[in-house]
């Protein structure tokens, strides 16, 4: 084989090209300068997005990965550059987002000497990465990066961090080309499917009178949306989602019975404790979904499909654990299950939905109060997008309301920080989401708290000219904490009253068009104007100060004890 001399830095970029990377989110600094110097010559092949903070860079990488289905790539320098990635790594770890983060490191001979901008990022990030590795010799770069990309995207995806010392970035070596990795001896991306458990699951489903399917992001990560739809359609079963599963099944699908968990829909929560077989697909029984565990679906036989064997029996004991990739296991189940008419059982959900509408949704969508509700804002968005937009949410009340009310027709359209609940996620994630799906409309819905955590990324929007619609739902409070203080802490509003800058002026100073609405009559036109505008847009919507998100499963309560008001 022909060999040529490359520097470690060039080898990093060659690896990115070989892996089909088109966009890198990053921020330069001393210890990663050789890679940035090499990048100068790769500008035609690799697009680099200069963010305003490394946390913004990694959240953008996450947004990109979530909408494109590809591995997000992030560059950062050593020391503070690397530590600023930690929140994003933890978020990507718990939400199974494939990322390859490359950090610069001080020269190898300075390791352990407390050199300038030296930090032990390998040990710092160990609990929040699927895998990490430090390279101090350039010859390792091709195969280690191949392994990094393979590990990030295969099996249950996750973030991988590769730390490269500056000398390795400078070092020239005989480059023998790049070989994509598809096997690591000690790593099993997916467990073998056992036929006996498929058979047991099929038998349980066929005998079930009141089966309920609950699905999570596994369906999206496994690219198994079609297989999932066939599975539920053949058996006529109702299906409810976790917030990361949202958009895997169109919201208006007749068997989509809504959202699970703390602020989920009435029917799926109550009936979790009434179904006879609970089929969990690619979800991990998070405590926000299950509520009190010892009162969770005790009457039901539980079938759990997951690619990660450590998830089965972790929180909820499964009667049948179907280990494997759901893209492979779902068709096997579909083959075995009988076609059934379950309209009577679906009608039970419809009954609960009606009650929820009467007692809760109706007033949220058409409030009698003067102040606008978050739900009517999302409703106004639905009216125009018809469910075709990508919606990125931050964390808090607006997130729960958006997930409850937004309509989605396509998969990979809901981007939110689920497991970690990272405030400040949405603005940078929306930028990345747009880079990952350039042909789609991206709307970021953010609270007045979250926007102020990462609003420096308006600078990234300004400089790249990327088109992101930002809706700030401003209730002048850290709303979710305030809601809890109201309900459980005798209205002791401890440090939840938060002031905002003039967002219109702020956006304008970043050369982004902006508007603010406080009156209901102006809402529809304002949303329409935002969506019709060519280029990014910031729309601040003043909403009711002390509105609460309902229904709600109070912490420590069972899902069937969900409160409608």
């Amino acid at each position, binding site marked *: 084989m022909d060999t040529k001399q490359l520097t470690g830095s060039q080898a990093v970029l060659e690896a990115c090209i070989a892996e089909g990377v088109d966009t890198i989110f990053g921020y330069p600094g001393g210890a990663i300068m050789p890679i940035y110097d090499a990048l100068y010559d790769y500008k035609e092949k690799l697009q680099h997005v200069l963010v305003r903070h490394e946390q913004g860079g990694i959240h953008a990488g996450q947004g990109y990965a979530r909408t494109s289905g590809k591995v997000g790539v992030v560059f950062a320098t050593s020391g503070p550059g690397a530590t600023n990635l930690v929140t994003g790594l933890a978020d990507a770890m718990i939400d199974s987002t494939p990322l390859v983060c490359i950090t610069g490191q001080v020269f190898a001979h300075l390791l352990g000497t407390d050199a300038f901008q030296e930090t032990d990022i*390998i040990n710092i990030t160990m609990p929040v990465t699927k895998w990490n590795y430090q390279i101090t010799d350039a010859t390792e770069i091709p195969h280690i990066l191949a392994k990094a990309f393979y590990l990030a995207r295969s099996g249950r995806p996750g973030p991988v961090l590769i730390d490269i010392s500056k000398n390795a970035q400078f070092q020239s070596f005989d480059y023998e080309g790049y070989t994509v990795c598809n096997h690591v001896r*000690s790593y099993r991306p997916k467990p*073998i499917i*056992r036929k006996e458990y498929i058979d*047991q699951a099929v038998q349980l489903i066929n005998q079930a009178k009141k089966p309920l399917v609950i699905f999570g992001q596994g369906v999206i990560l496994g690219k198994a949306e079609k297989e999932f739809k066939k599975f539920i359609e053949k058996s006529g079963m109702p299906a409810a989602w976790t917030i990361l599963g949202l958009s895997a099944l169109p919201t208006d699908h007749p068997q989509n019975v809504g959202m699970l968990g703390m602020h989920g829909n009435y029917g799926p929560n109550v009936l979790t404790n009434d179904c006879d077989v609970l089929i969990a697909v690619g979800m991990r029984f998070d405590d926000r979904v299950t509520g009190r565990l010892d009162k969770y679906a005790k009457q039901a036989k539980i079938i759990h499909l997951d690619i*990660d064997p*450590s998830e089965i*029996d972790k929180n909820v004991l499964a*009667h049948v654990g179907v280990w494997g990739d759901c893209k492979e296991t779902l068709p096997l189940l579909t083959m075995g299950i009988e076609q059934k008419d379950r309209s009577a059982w679906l009608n039970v959900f419809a009954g609960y939905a009606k009650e929820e509408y009467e007692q809760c949704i109706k007033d949220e969508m058409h409030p009698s109060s003067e102040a606008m509700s978050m739900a009517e804002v999302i409703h106004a968005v639905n009216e125009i997008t018809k469910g075709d937009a990508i919606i990125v949410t931050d964390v808090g009340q607006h997130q729960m309301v958006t997930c409850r009310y937004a309509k989605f027709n396509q998969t990979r359209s809901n981007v939110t920080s689920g497991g970690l609940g990272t405030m400040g996620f949405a603005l940078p994630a929306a930028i990345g989401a747009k880079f990952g799906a350039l042909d789609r409309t991206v709307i970021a819905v953010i609270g007045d708290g979250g926007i102020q955590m990462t609003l420096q990324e308006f600078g990234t929007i300004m400089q790249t000219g990327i088109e992101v619609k930002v809706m700030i739902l401003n209730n002048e409070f850290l709303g979710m904490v305030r809601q809890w203080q109201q309900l459980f802490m005798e209205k002791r509003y401890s440090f939840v009253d938060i002031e905002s800058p003039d967002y219109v002026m702020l956006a304008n100073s970043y050369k982004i068009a902006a508007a603010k609405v406080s009156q209901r009559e102006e809402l529809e036109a304002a949303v329409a104007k935002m969506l019709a505008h060519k280029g990014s847009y910031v729309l601040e919507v003043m909403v009711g100060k002390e509105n609460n998100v309902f229904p709600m499963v109070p912490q420590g309560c069972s899902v069937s004890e969900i409160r409608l008001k």
Partner: protein
Amino acid sequence: MENEKQEFTITVYTENQVGLLNRIAIIFSRRKINVESLNTSPSEVPGIHRFTIVVVESKEVVIKVVRQIEKQVEVLKAYYNTNDEIVWQELALYKVLSDEITEKVKVERLLREFGARAVAIRKDFIVFETTGHREETNKLMEALAPFGLVEFVRSARVAIIKESAGFHEKLKDFEKREPGDELIENEYLGKREAVFTM
């Protein structure tokens, strides 16, 4: 029974890589589980390391921890065993002053009783060695204490799993792209027949 705490020995086969000790250690520390004893050294298979970790925990917790360990990229396989499923030893070294040993016959008898071996004999001190279970090595330490035990050290537990056929054959399976059935040990699920009735 499942929730009763008892001693478990966890055996982990891993690649030989920097940082792996920490990756395994944080699985315990994150869950606030104290590691009673930890040994790591090359296994019978070149390039493969073997960890022997002792914890006092319930079976339920140990199963979850073992699955988290096995999930790590560079871990090939992890097993957990109760004490009756393994044969184990710990090694202990005792440093005593030569004067005490040579002058007091009782000490010599003690050493005979405990099967100790002298590994270093000097004018000023002698180092003895015993292997055995914790209680056995403890007994000698207690017995020597009145005679001026200068220094004492004990190794971590090393354990052999009675039912294990070693790792050579298993490794061949790992090197294949498609693993064989026996790699995917699903023993917990195998007991599901009992609950599988409508």
